[in-house]
């Protein structure tokens, strides 16, 4: 295991309507990043990205996989789901734009801030989506060695 380049991978399986899994994945991610000695802000932003990406799967998709990869240079978070896809990504990125169903909004989720939050927390964001098939979201946080490592 400890051969090759230093790298740590955390994976989560997210299912439709499993609201608790988003919070759990986020706190596990944060704990791991804290143990790795990354700066509080990086740990916090990564946890937010994981939470929001997982929430998107919970709310909109059927199931999805979340993969957090940490290397000394960056943290990357990839969320891949099987679901309806996003027809208009640019529109979906706008704060407040939401296609979440009524009952989800009543629970206090789906306010249309998810993707905007992810964008705010990441240095790079890539979304590929195919309507009717699914979405792949890839967010990266760069670790400027001296700064972001405590």
């Amino acid at each position, binding site marked *: *295991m400890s051969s090759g380049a230093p790298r*740590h991978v955390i994976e989560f399986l997210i299912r439709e309507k499993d609201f608790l899994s988003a919070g759990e994945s986020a706190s596990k991610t944060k704990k791991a990043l804290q*143990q790795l*000695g990354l700066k509080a802000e990086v740990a916090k932003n990564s946890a937010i990205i994981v939470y929001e990406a997982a929430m998107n799967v919970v709310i909109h998709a059927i199931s999805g996989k979340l993969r957090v990869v940490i290397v*000394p240079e960056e943290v990357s978070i990839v969320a891949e789901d099987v679901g309806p896809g996003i027809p208009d990504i640019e529109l979906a990125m706008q704060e407040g734009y939401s296609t979440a169903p009524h009952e989800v909004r009543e629970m206090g989720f789906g306010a249309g801030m998810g993707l905007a939050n992810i964008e705010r927390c990441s240095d790079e964001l890539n979304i590929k989506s195919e309507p009717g098939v699914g979405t792949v979201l890839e967010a990266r946080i760069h670790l400027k060695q001296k700064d972001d490592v405590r």
Partner: protein
Amino acid sequence: MANYFHSVTLDEEKCLGCTNCIKRCPVEAIRVHQGKAKIIEERCIDCGECIRSCPNHAKVAVTDALERLAAFEYRIVLPAPSFFAQIREEKDIERILQALLNLGFDEVYEVALAAEVVSYMVGKYLATNNYKKPLISSACPAILRLMQMKFPDLLEQVTPIMTPMEVAARLAKEGAVARTGIPYERIGAFFISPCPAKVTEMRQPLHVKKSAVDGVIGATAIYKDVIKQLAKVKGSTKGLRRATSRGIGWGYLTGESRAIGTSSSLSTGGIQNAISIFEEIERGELKDVDFIEVQACPGGCVGGPLNMQNLFVARVNLKNMITKYKAKDAYFDAKQLKRFYEQDHFWSTERVEPRPIMVLDDDVSKALFKMERLDAITASLPGLDCGACGSPNCRALAEDIIRGSAFDTDCVIKLRERVKTLAEEILDLARKLPQTMAKEQPATGKNDDGKDFSSA
């Protein structure tokens, strides 16, 4: 921090080496090694959960004894608001204060009165709107220590105002200097505490350089003496009580928020709840909340581990007292309170600093390798989380192995597996006979390596 003081310690003689405490510690700060519980000092937040959960009463809070009073010329007792709720039969705060005085104090100053000052200050600070929302209460030291370790980025949201205990000590001592002429250093202030975290807070304060409190006495420790003195107190006359419902209410959860009087506040008790609320705040939620009252003990200070009374009974007791002492009869008037706010006297002088003790290695690359090993070891463990190894769960054992303080054979299941393998090998060897003794040849007529015997 090399010499980190802790109030919560172990009474080695009473500890039977069971694993109740390691499973209940919310920050995984206890291990059982060589038949005794060991508290990992830099992790312990002095919440006292282990004091509650130890069936053998082997966890004790180091507090100060009444004998320490002798070191001072003038002695002031500072009872916590929750203390008034501890005596089931007594509904008159006046009498409780007199009984406390009779223990050998020259003056009594209610922390509840100082809590009214703090309530006003926090309320006014909230009204400025010049802070990051939500503002987090600074009153519970166990919560602040939890934040230092696990939520360092939220520390900037902690109210920069001293705790009622600290404000009470300062107000009381300064008043005593003015009245008696006795020098400040010869005046001792003693807090009657529901929790061990306040002892630690006095010795290693987080908001101030040096605490004005000189001793912390556990409520349990003086309970009996107070009951004894109460029997001798005749009637209720002296006018010792100055605190009203606003300050006394701080004794239980929601009292603090109510006293502060903000329209948007949230009150939470218990460490697990605190963790989930902090996680929400970190995600940027709860921005519509102005103030968060957060207590390590379920139910707030009345649920403190050094109290005698059941939390719910105490809550009712305190509630009854509150209806009796109306807030409109407050001791400090608006002008005086405003003066407190404008002075920098009761504002925290120190920032609460992060204490990141969870890091596997200071070098990220090394930490990453260790994390991979950590995952591999965790996967190899049975996942029972039984605690028989002395670590609270399998993941924690894996961490201890990585940090060099445990071995994988500490796991009884792993050990059993190895014994099983070993036993099978022994059995296997025992069955083997040297050729000189072997009576029967294998049915195939072939040796283990497939060679014909005749050719050997």
